């Protein structure tokens, strides 16, 4: 049975920014009591519940499923629910909004640019022969599923965007998560959507915007490995450029 009485304290330096009154973001120090089983997210919730009710941040599931609580923790993108205060004590711990996104308020960023990029890769099944749900499942072998399953674990937490310097240097770059999901559907045996996604992949701001820093894969909390997904599509993109795209294209299965 764990001890629920806080006996230790940690200093959190949390970025504060209220656009209606502040000309620039600034850090605010908080002294937070904690127990060994408390996450950084719970530390922020303690501030909101007991010290400053105006502190704004996103969160939902508290167990690395929803991808809402991404922050820069001492300069490294991490999920607030996945890092424990005991590992950061005694601090001070700098908590800032995810890098490379406009800040709306405190730790809340504007995700609009990512959502546009995500929509552009058509992250849904493009079947050769559309069929109604009543027609039953479209079966796959375990080997066919293994081709895309790791990339399907993305939770859109945006840690990879905050880790990628190319996203910061070139805001038009489609970025790791969107391109990993592009690959997720391209690698699906039921999907024939490469023709619809090729323009995004082949663009200079598509897969060729990646210089293989590799930090996107390091910070991913779900082991998606976007760097691997992107660089596999450089082969597809080069084949397209050389007119060999037809050799790589998946043939539509019979209806």
């Amino acid at each position, binding site marked *: 049975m764990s001890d629920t009485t806080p006996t230790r304290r940690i200093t959190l330096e949390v970025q504060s920014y209220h656009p209606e009154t502040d000309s620039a973001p600034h850090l605010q120090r908080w002294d937070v009591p904690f127990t060994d089983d408390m996450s950084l997210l719970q530390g922020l919730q303690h501030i909101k519940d007991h010290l400053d009710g105006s502190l704004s941040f996103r969160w939902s599931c508290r167990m690395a499923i929803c991808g809402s609580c991404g922050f820069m923790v001492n*300069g*490294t993108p991490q999920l607030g629910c996945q890092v424990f205060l005991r590992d950061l004590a005694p601090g001070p711990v700098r908590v800032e909004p995810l890098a490379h996104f406009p800040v709306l308020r405190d730790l809340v960023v504007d995700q609009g640019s990512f959502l546009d990029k995500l929509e552009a890769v058509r992250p849904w099944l493009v079947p050769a022969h559309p069929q109604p749900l009543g027609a039953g499942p479209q079966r796959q072998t375990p080997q066919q599923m*293994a*081709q895309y399953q790791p990339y399907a674990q993305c939770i859109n937490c945006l840690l990879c965007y905050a880790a990628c*310097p190319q996203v*910061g*240097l070139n805001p038009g770059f489609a970025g790791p998560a969107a391109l990993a999901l592009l690959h997720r559907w391209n690698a699906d045996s039921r999907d024939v959507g490469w023709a619809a996604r090729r323009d995004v992949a082949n663009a200079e701001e598509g897969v060729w915007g990646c*210089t*293989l*820093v*590799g*930090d996107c*894969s*390091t910070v991913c909390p779900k082991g998606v*490995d976007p*760097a*691997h997904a992107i*660089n*596999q599509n*450089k*082969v597809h993109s080069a084949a397209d450029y050389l007119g060999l795209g037809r050799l790589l294209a998946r043939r539509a299965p019979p209806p």
Partner: protein
Amino acid sequence: MGGWWRRRSVHRRYMLREASALCITAYALLLLAGLVCLQRGEAAYAAWRALLGTPWSIGLHALALPLIAYHAITWFQVMPKTAPRLAVPPRWITLGGLALSALLSLALLVALWWVGR
């Protein structure tokens, strides 16, 4: 974004990996200059070899060797990211590439020793 690469160690290592490619380019040009000198005649080739023996050249070689080794190691470390999905663990691709590279380098050294003895 100014000075972005100085803030995190992973980005500093990335920049060193990319910068070490310049060292490889410079060394390839040096070897190319040797070939041009060889084509121009014995005197030119002897002058190029004499240049390699100067303290400045030896110092630059001492700097180039660790940079080229760093580039080779990091190159094989990112190789699995550029390969298709394979049945073998990514670590095996890195270690296999490094082992093959070391073996070929050793074979080249033995061959040069054999020819020059």
